């Protein structure tokens, strides 16, 4: 498969320059494009995505310098070469500061043009190669994480499965002392698996790029799925889990996968730290430009002095009594990171012995017509 020809755009108000450059470029195996002023030049850049742009600095109207600025905004990887009428140092330096790769003083010979274009394209090739290598490296790192966690989780899952079967009495009677020890072992194993999953989540988050995956989606649908999914879990703990009906606007701009994680975590906590016959209510509301989600439980609550630290990494409440602090302490800090990345906020209100309410504010998706 032949490689596409490099696209070179010539922005110059002099027809002679545009024509002669085009001829030379075509002959040398490039695809020439032209524009007779800065305004048309900017348009063309966005349409044809050139590899390299030749810009005449001295143009009426939109000046060459303005074009340079726009190129930097649009795609700083495009190579810009300025054609200067007056080969004074200041203009060249100014242009380089604005991102120009090089400058070509008029009048120039075909060979001078060739040399400078060749250097410019070589630089572009290197830039693109670096980008592509960076992407590859990222993919490999992600695959590595996936591989490692799969290799860690898979055997742990099997071990956990055996515990379930044995403790369920399905392969013979279990003596009380055996039950006690096996239960403890199973709990330790669950904690370990949670920790691995939390680390995996953190690693994926630190990779950043949640923002790249943003799109508009229905938050109500996500919450509905989560609540449905967690019903069995809630029932096992004898806790009622309810999503309050909501018929307003529920469109959020964000990443549904990580927001699913946030609300699953909040609801999972609400189940974990609840009391028998307790209740969990998940509700939505539109407040100004935000969608507000409340996860309210009738659980054991959080002491006032601990409230400021609840979203800190590894923070776990010290509890006296048999209810040892469950969990890894990472869940809420991950949730906060995700909500922050969405431009939202997360808060908690709580009363010890009565229950807690976690509130998440998320910016609503603006309707398409509002976007520029």
């Amino acid at each position, binding site marked *: 498969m032949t490689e596409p020809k490099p696209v070179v755009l010539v922005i110059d108000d002099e027809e002679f320059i545009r024509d002669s450059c085009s001829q030379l470029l075509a002959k040398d195996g490039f695809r020439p494009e032209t524009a007779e002023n800065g305004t048309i030049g900017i348009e063309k850049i966005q349409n044809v995505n050139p590899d390299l742009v030749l810009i005449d600095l001295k143009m009426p109207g939109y000046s060459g310098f303005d074009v340079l600025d726009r190129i930097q905004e649009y795609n700083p990887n495009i190579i810009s070469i300025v054609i200067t009428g007056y080969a004074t140092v200041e203009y060249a330096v100014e242009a380089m500061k604005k991102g120009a790769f090089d400058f070509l003083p008029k009048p120039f010979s075909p060979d001078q043009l060739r040399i400078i274009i060749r250097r410019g394209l070589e630089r572009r090739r290197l830039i693109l190669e670096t980008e592509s290598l960076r992407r590859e490296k990222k993919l490999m790192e992600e695959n590595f994480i996936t591989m490692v*966690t*799969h290799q860690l*989780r*898979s055997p742990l*899952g*099997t071990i*956990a*499965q*055996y*515990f*379930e*079967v044995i403790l*369920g009495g*399905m*392969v013979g009677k279990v003596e009380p002392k055996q039950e006690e020890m096996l239960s403890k072992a199973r709990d330790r194993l669950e904690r370990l*698996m*949670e920790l691995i*999953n*939390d680390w*995996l*989540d953190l690693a994926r988050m630190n990779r950043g790029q949640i923002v790249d995956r943003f799109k508009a989606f229905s938050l109500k649908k996500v919450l509905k799925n*989560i609540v449905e*999914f*967690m019903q*069995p*879990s809630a029932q*096992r703990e004898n806790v009622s889990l309810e999503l309050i009906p909501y018929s307003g606007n529920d469109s959020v701009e964000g990443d549904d*996968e990580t927001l*699913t*994680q946030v609300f*699953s*975590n909040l609801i*999972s906590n609400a189940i974990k730290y609840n009391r028998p016959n307790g209740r969990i209510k998940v509700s939505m509301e539109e407040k100004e430009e935000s969608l507000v989600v409340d996860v309210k439980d009738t659980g054991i609550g959080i002491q006032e002095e601990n409230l400021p630290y609840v979203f800190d990494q590894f923070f776990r409440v010290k509890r006296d009594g048999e209810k040892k602090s469950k969990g890894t302490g990472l*869940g809420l800090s*991950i949730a906060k990171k995700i909500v922050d990345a969405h431009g939202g906020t997360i808060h908690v209100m709580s009363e010890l012995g009565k229950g807690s309410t976690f509130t998440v504010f998320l910016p609503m998706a603006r309707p398409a017509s509002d976007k520029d």
Partner: protein
Amino acid sequence: MEKAKILVIDDDPDFVDAITPILQSAQFSVINAANPAQGKEKILGEKPDLILLDIMMDSLFDGFSLCHNIKTAKEFKDVKDTPIIFVSAVKEMTGSRFQFQGEDQGLIGPDDYIDKPVKPDDLIARIEKLLKK
């Protein structure tokens, strides 16, 4: 009542070993296959009442496409209504759980999901719910 026959398709013999007593405790009989190809044979040959399909075998796609084929392909016509539960080793919803993105590719999904390690009563409940239909 006749015992229901459950087909477990999973490449991990330990999982099959662990889950068989669970199913047997609920009076189900168990047959198994180690990969989608064997699974296909057993489905057509033994006509199980329900299928537990591990989707973490070799490639995710194998599990998805087997499910889709059972529900839509001509060769599976006689068994297309067999309920299918996806079994995956991905953590419950809190994060890394995959969502059935197969839907985006136009693949028909399963009747239910369950995460490994499966809790015996959860599994039995889900199976019985699907068998009642």
